[in-house]
C-alpha cells in the first residue's frame, strides 16, 4: 500500500497555493477598459526607451499587418470585422478593443492550457492502460496501478474544463471567437465562416458534446478500475476478461470522442482554420506526455521503495515508448505543417503565419527541438534508457515541450501577438501541476500497488529485456 508522503503532499499544496495566487494576480491585473489597454501599451513603449521606439513602432506595425491579413481572411473577431469594414487604421477604437479582448483573454489562456494539458495526459494514460490490457502485454502489469493512479485526475480535471467551457459559453471570456459571431449576414457581428459552420459551432451543441466526451472518459475509468479491483479481491478470471472487453470498447469510443473533442476544444479556437489531421496530432502530443508521466511516477515510486519488482527493463520499455512516440508526434506535426506549408492555401496558411513567421516563432521552433531533437538524441542509446535520472531529465523536457505545444495551439487564437510568459502563465501551470500531483498520488493510495491476481503478473515480474 502506498502512503502519500507528507512532504510531497505539502509540496503539492504549496504549488496549488502559489499557483492560485498567480492566477488571481493574472485576473486582477488584466485590463478592464480600453483606457487600461492604452495605458498598458504606452507603458510598454516607454519601457523600451527612446532608442528602440522606432523599432517598436515597426514591430507594432508589422503585427498590425498580420492582424489585417488574418482579419481579412479569418475575421478573427466580430469587432475587427467592423474595424475592417470601417476602413480605419492604427489608433482607432476597434483596434484597442481588439487588443483589450486579447489582453483579457490572457489569464484565461494561461489557465486553459495547463487545464487541457493535464486532463488529456490523464485521459491518455487511461488509453495507454487500455492498450496494455487489450494487447495482453506481459511486461506492464506491474505498472497497472501506477497507470490507474495517473488516470485519477480525469474526474476533477474534466469538471474544471467543463466549468471553463460553460464560463466561455456564458461570455465570461473571448476564448472562442465563434461564440461572438453570427451567421446572419445582416448582423453587426456577422462572420462568413459561421454561415457554413454554425451547424457544428453553436453553444448548446458545444456544451452537450463536451458533457458527452467527459462522461465517456469518467465512466470508462470508473468501470475499468472497479473491475480491476474486483479481480484483485476475487482472483476470478472473468474480471480479467471483462477488463479486456472494457478496454477494447473504451479504445474504440475514445478514438471517436477524441476526434471531435480536439475539433471542439482546440481547433475551434481558430475557427476559420481546419485540418483533417488535427485530432490525431493532439492525441500524439498528449499520448507521449502521458507515457512520460507514467514513467516519471514509476521512477519516483520506485526510488521511494514502493515498487520493488519494477526493474530497469520496465523503465527501459517506458523510455522506448517515450522515444518512439516523440518521433511519432514529430511525424504528425510534420505531416500537418508541411502539407499546409507546401500547398500554401491562404485560409490554411494563416494558421502557421504567426506560429512559423510571427510572434510565436521562438515557441514553435523551441518546442520542436524539445519534443523531437532532444528525445531522439537522448533516448536513442539503450543504456541511457535504463538510467532513471536520464529518463527523468528527458521526461521533463518532453513534458515542457508538449506544454508549449498546447500553448502554441491555443494562444495565437486567443491572445494573438500579445503573448507573454509571466506570472499568470507560470502560476496556472504550478496550480494545475500541484493539483495533478495531489490528486494522482492521493488516488495511488487507494489500492495496493501490486495487482496480484493478474494472469500476466509473473511474466511482468520476470520481465527482462
Amino acid at each position, binding site marked *: 500500500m502506498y502512503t502519500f508522503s507528507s512532504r510531497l503532499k505539502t509540496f503539492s499544496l504549496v504549488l496549488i497555493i502559489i499557483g492560485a495566487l498567480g492566477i488571481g494576480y493574472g485576473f486582477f491585473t488584466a485590463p478592464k477598459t480600453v483606457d487600461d489597454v492604452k495605458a498598458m501599451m504606452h507603458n510598454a513603449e516607454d519601457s523600451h526607451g527612446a532608442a528602440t521606439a522606432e523599432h517598436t513602432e515597426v514591430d507594432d506595425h508589422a503585427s498590425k499587418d498580420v492582424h489585417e491579413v488574418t482579419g481579412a481572411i479569418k475575421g478573427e473577431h466580430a469587432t475587427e470585422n467592423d474595424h475592417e469594414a470601417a476602413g480605419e487604421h492604427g489608433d482607432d477604437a476597434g483596434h484597442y478593443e481588439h487588443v483589450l479582448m486579447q489582453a483579457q483573454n490572457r489569464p484565461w489562456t494561461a489557465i486553459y492550457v495547463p487545464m487541457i494539458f493535464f486532463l488529456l495526459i490523464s485521459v491518455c494514460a487511461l488509453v495507454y492502460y487500455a492498450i496494455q490490457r487489450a494487447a495482453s502485454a506481459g511486461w506492464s502489469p506491474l505498472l497497472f496501478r501506477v497507470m490507474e493512479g495517473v488516470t485519477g485526475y480525469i474526474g476533477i480535471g474534466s469538471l474544471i474544463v467543463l466549468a471553463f467551457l460553460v464560463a466561455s459559453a456564458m461570455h465570461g471570456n473571448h476564448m472562442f471567437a465563434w461564440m461572438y459571431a453570427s451567421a446572419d449576414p445582416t448582423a453587426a457581428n456577422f462572420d462568413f465562416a459561421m454561415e457554413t459552420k454554425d451547424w*457544428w459551432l453553436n453553444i448548446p451543441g458545444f456544451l452537450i458534446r463536451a458533457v458527452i466526451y467527459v462522461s465517456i472518459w469518467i465512466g470508462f475509468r470508473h468501470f475499468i478500475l472497479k473491475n480491476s479491483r474486483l479481480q484483485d479481491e476475487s482472483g476470478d478470471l472473468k474480471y480479467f476478461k471483462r477488463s479486456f472487453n472494457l478496454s477494447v470498447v473504451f479504445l474504440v469510443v475514445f478514438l471517436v470522442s477524441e476526434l*471531435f473533442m480536439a475539433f471542439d476544444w482546440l481547433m475551434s479556437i481558430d475557427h476559420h482554420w*481546419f485540418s483533417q489531421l488535427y485530432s*490525431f496530432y493532439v492525441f500524439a502530443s498528449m499520448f507521449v506526455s502521458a507515457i512520460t508521466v507514467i514513467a516519471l511516477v514509476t521512477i519516483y515510486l520506485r526510488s521511494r521503495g514502493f515498487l520493488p519488482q519494477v526493474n530497469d527493463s520496465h523503465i527501459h520499455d517506458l523510455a522506448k515508448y517515450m522515444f518512439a512516440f516523440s518521433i511519432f508526434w514529430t*511525424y504528425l506535426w510534420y505531416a500537418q505543417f508541411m*502539407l499546409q506549408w507546401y500547398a500554401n492555401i491562404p485560409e490554411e496558411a494563416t494558421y502557421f503565419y504567426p506560429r512559423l513567421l510571427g510572434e510565436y516563432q521562438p515557441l514553435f521552433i523551441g518546442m520542436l527541438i524539445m519534443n523531437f531533437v532532444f528525445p531522439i538524441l537522448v533516448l536513442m542509446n539503450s543504456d541511457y534508457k535504463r538510467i532513471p535520472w536520464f529518463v527523468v531529465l528527458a521526461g521533463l523536457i518532453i513534458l515542457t515541450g508538449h506544454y508549449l505545444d498546447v500553448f502554441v495551439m491555443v494562444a495565437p487564437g486567443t491572445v494573438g501577438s500579445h503573448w507573454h510568459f509571466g506570472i499568470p502563465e507560470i502560476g496556472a501551470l504550478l496550480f494545475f501541476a500541484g493539483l495533478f500531483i495531489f490528486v494522482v498520488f492521493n488516488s495511488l493510495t487507494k489500492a495496493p500497488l501490486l495487482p496480484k491476481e493478474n494472469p500476466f503478473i*509473473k*511474466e511482468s515480474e520476470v520481465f527482462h529485456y
Partner: protein
Amino acid sequence: MGHYEAPIREPIITGDKSYHDITLDVAAPIEGKANKSWYIAFTIALIAFLWGIGSIAYTIGTGIGVWGLNNRINWAWDITNFVWWVGIGHAGTLISAVLLLFRQKWRMGINRSAEAMTIFAVFQAGLFPLIHMGRIWNGFYTLPVPNPLGSLWVNFNSPLLWDVFAISTYLSVSLVFWWTGLLPDFAMIRDRATKPFQKKIYSLVSFGWSGKAKDWQRFEEVSLVLAGLATPLVLSVHTIVSFDFATSVIPGWHSTVYPPYFVAGAVFSGFAMVQTLLLIMRKVSNLEDYITRVHVENMNKVILVTGGIVTVAYLSELFVGWYTGSSYEDFVYLSVGAATGPYWWAFWSLIICNSIIPQLFWFKKIRRNYIWTFIIAIFINIGMWFERFDIIVINLSRGHLPSSWTQFSPTFVDIGIFVGTIGFFFVLFLLYARTFPVIAQAEVKSILKSSGNNFKRERDNPSAVKTEV
C-alpha cells in the same frame, strides 16, 4: 526463467514439435517435387504475366493514349495500382519490423512470407511509376546524377521524386532485412542438401553462415537495428506516396490526414493480402502447425484496428469537408456528391468493403474461422483498391471548373497491365514457395520451448511425461 510464459497464452506452435520436426516441415516443400496443382497455378500466373508484358510493350510502343486517361483524369489505374501494390507491401515490414519491436512471438510463423510478399508487391508497384511515363526511356532523368547538360539536376520539391527515393530505399532495405533473416535458414537447407547443384546454390545464398555464438549475437543486433530503421521507413514510404496527392491543391486530395491514414490503410490491405496468401499456403505446404488459428486471429485483430483507424480517418475527412463549408468539397471522394454521383458504385464499394464488412471480425467465431477470414480478406483487398481508385478518379473527375468535369473508363490495356502485375506477383510467389524456407525456422525454434503446445502442457502440468527434443 527466460522461457517463462503465462499459462493463459495460447500455444503458437501446435502438433508436439521437436526442433527436428520443424526442420523437416520447413524443408519439405523445397526438397520435394511440385505437384500438379502448383504447375496449373504457375501456368495461369505466367499467362497473366505474359499478357501484362504484352500490354506494357503495347503501351510503350504506341503511347499512353492507349490507356483510358484523359486531359482531366490523367492518373487513374496506373497510380491506383501503384498505391495499391505499395500498400500491400507494407504489411510485410509491419510484421517483420514493428511486431519485432513489440516482441510479438506469433510474427515468427508468418514473417518470412509476409516479407516475401512485400518485396514482390514492391516489384509490381515499382513498374507503374516507370510505365506511366510518356517517355520511359528518359526515366533516368529522375535520378540526381551529374550529367553533360550543364549538370541539369532534379527538383527536390516534387513528391514524385520523393517517391523514387522512398520506393527504392524501401525495396533495398526490405531486401536486406529479408535476406539477413534467411541466412540461417538457407544454411539449414544447404546442410541438408544431397544434390550437388542444390548444395552449391544454397551455399552461395547462405554466405557461409555457420551459426557461431558471435554470429548469432550480431545477427540479433542487426535485426533489431534494421527493425528500428524499417519501422520509420515503412511509415514514411506510404506517407510519401500519400504526399503525391496531399501536397496538391485539388479538392479531396489536399488533406493533412492522408499520411497516417494511408499508412493505416496500407497495413489494413497488406494484412488482408497476407491472410489471402497464408491461408492457402498453410494448407498446400502443410504448415498448419506453424500458421495456426492464433496467427489468423491476431492478424484479423490487426485488420480490425487498422480498419478502425481508416474508418475514423474517413469520418475526419467527411467531417472537415462539411466543416470547411467549401462547395468544392461537395464532390470529393467522401461526400454526399460522391455517394450519389456517377461514381456512387465506387463510393459504396469502398464503404462496404472497408468500413462495414471487416466489422464482422468483432465476432470471435468469425475471426477464428479460416473460410470467413479468407472471404473478408478478399473483400478488403477489393475495398482498398477502390479506396485508391476513389481518391484518384473521383477527386479528379469533378474539380474546380465544371467545364472540366469528366469521367474515366479503362481500356483493355489498363486492365491487362493490372492483371499482368497480379500474374507476375504470383509467378514470383509460387517460385518462392518452392525454393525458399517459407517459415523462419531459426526464429520459430527460438520460441518452441516457450510457446510450443507440448512444452506449455508440460510446464503447466509438470507430472506429465517429459518431451524429447
